[in-house]
């Protein structure tokens, strides 16, 4: 049901020949919400017909057969608009003489054609440009201090003010690798947008989709409750909050602990893996060495210790109470539930609230504990 403004067909040109490990392509084959085959087979109502061109999943044997559509796109000869997906860091090809760092196919002279040349030709014609994974978004692991290639993220290369033919900035979906469903959801948004059904994709100032990266790891972590109680893991055996053993979750924008890695399973700090900030522009250098306590955590961790100890004591009491059943659940030959078939009950009124609500009152706790065999 595309509106007039929308298109019927879209090519997805996916080049993983940046300085990558192809881990984002592999990761996306794990997506189920939606699955890549659902998109290719047109099983999502409302999206345009998708022609996927990805080296790993392509039918062709490779070479010119595979490259044809890329050449057509570069010459502006594709009949339908295309989304350009770039995977891997973009090297600096201005420092290495006649050599190259990474290439995709060959130039007319038979020398390898650097990825940078492809980007120069394709990006200005693309309906949208998506950087998948932290290498393509911000440079990532290969842009670490001491590297020889001078590599960077796609927006560093194209310019942060770059706009595609549809007026969209580079769309960044970081993650090392990308969380599978995060990417597929972003792609689906863009496909709906191409169909004229979605408005402009909401991106934050680091060009990430807001609904995926708009909170911190810690804000979604199921171990954050330990932090609040000032109760920390001191090595990796412990299932408690890991900020003292290297977790950067409190300051990292990512939804993985909340979403899980796939099908809700796995993740990072939620399953015992410290957050190393792999979605962030500052990754990896600003988070290294990974296994040391982040400097900020020493301060906030100590402050919360006193508060946490007190809160733990209070919660321990309430928790004991809540762990005891109300006293009217018994097998004595009489009913003590307060049963009365008529309401309101005149005798009830003046007593006021809670007079006989034994189970939730602290002063009854002791007697209940004494009387209940469960607590011995």
């Amino acid at each position, binding site marked *: 049901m595309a509106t007039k403004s929308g298109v019927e067909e879209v090519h997805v040109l996916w080049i993983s020949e940046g300085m990558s490990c192809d881990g984002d392509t592999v990761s996306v084959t794990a997506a189920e919400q939606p699955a890549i085959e659902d998109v290719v087979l047109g099983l999502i109502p409302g999206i345009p017909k998708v022609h996927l061109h990805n080296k790993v999943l392509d039918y062709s044997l490779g070479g010119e057969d595979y490259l044809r559509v890329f050449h057509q796109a570069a010459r502006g000869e594709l009949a339908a608009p295309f989304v350009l997906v770039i995977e891997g860091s973009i090297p600096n090809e201005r420092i290495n003489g006649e050599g190259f760092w990474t290439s995709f196919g060959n130039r007319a002279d038979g020398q390898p054609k650097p990825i940078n040349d492809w980007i120069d030709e394709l990006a200005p014609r693309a309906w949208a440009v998506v950087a998948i994974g932290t290498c393509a978004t911000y440079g990532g692991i290969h842009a670490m201090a001491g590297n020889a290639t001078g590599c960077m993220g796609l927006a560093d290369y194209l310019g942060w003010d770059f706009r595609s033919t549809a007026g969209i*900035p580079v769309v960044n979906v970081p993650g090392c690798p990308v969380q599978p469903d995060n990417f597929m959801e972003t792609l689906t948004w863009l496909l709906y947008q191409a169909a004229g059904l979605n*408005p*402009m*994709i*909401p*991106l*934050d*100032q680091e*060009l990430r989709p*807001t*609904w*995926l*990266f*708009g*909170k*911190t790891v810690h*804000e*979604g972590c199921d171990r954050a409750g330990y932090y609040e109680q000032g109760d920390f893991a001191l090595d990796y055996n412990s299932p408690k909050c890991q900020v003292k053993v290297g977790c950067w979750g*409190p*300051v990292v*924008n990512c*939804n993985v602990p*909340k979403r899980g890695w796939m099908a809700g399973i796995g993740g990072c700090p939620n399953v015992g893996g410290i957050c190393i900030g792999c979605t962030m522009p500052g990754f990896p250098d600003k988070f290294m060495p990974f296994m040391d306590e982040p400097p900020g955590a020493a301060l906030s961790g100590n402050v919360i210790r006193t508060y946490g100890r007190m809160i733990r004591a209070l919660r321990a009491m309430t928790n004991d109470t809540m762990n005891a059943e*109300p*006293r*009217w659940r018994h097998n*004595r*030959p*009489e*009913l*003590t*539930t*307060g*049963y*009365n*078939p008529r*309401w309101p*009950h005149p005798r*009830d009124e003046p*007593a006021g*609230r*809670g*007079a*006989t*609500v*034994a*189970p939730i009152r602290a002063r009854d706790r002791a007697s209940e504990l004494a009387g209940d065999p469960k607590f011995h």
Partner: protein
Amino acid sequence: MKRPRIFANLRVGKPDTKPSAPSHVRGIRGGNQVGAADQVGFYSTGPAPRRGVSDIKATAARSTGINPRARNPIDPRSPNLPPA
């Protein structure tokens, strides 16, 4: 101890509680309370929204307490959709 009473064949002893014990007490905060929509991260678009649309929209602060302003969409044409 009071002798058990019989209500239509049911043997009723001294009640341990009363049926209305778990009901609301005035003064305690309720999640449904009017005015709560003014919390951080939400705003009203004014009195005349389109039919079939509510008047409440969200900002990034709905979902994060860390640098929320930097998490708002940069393009005014985009809807503001912070995470769950």
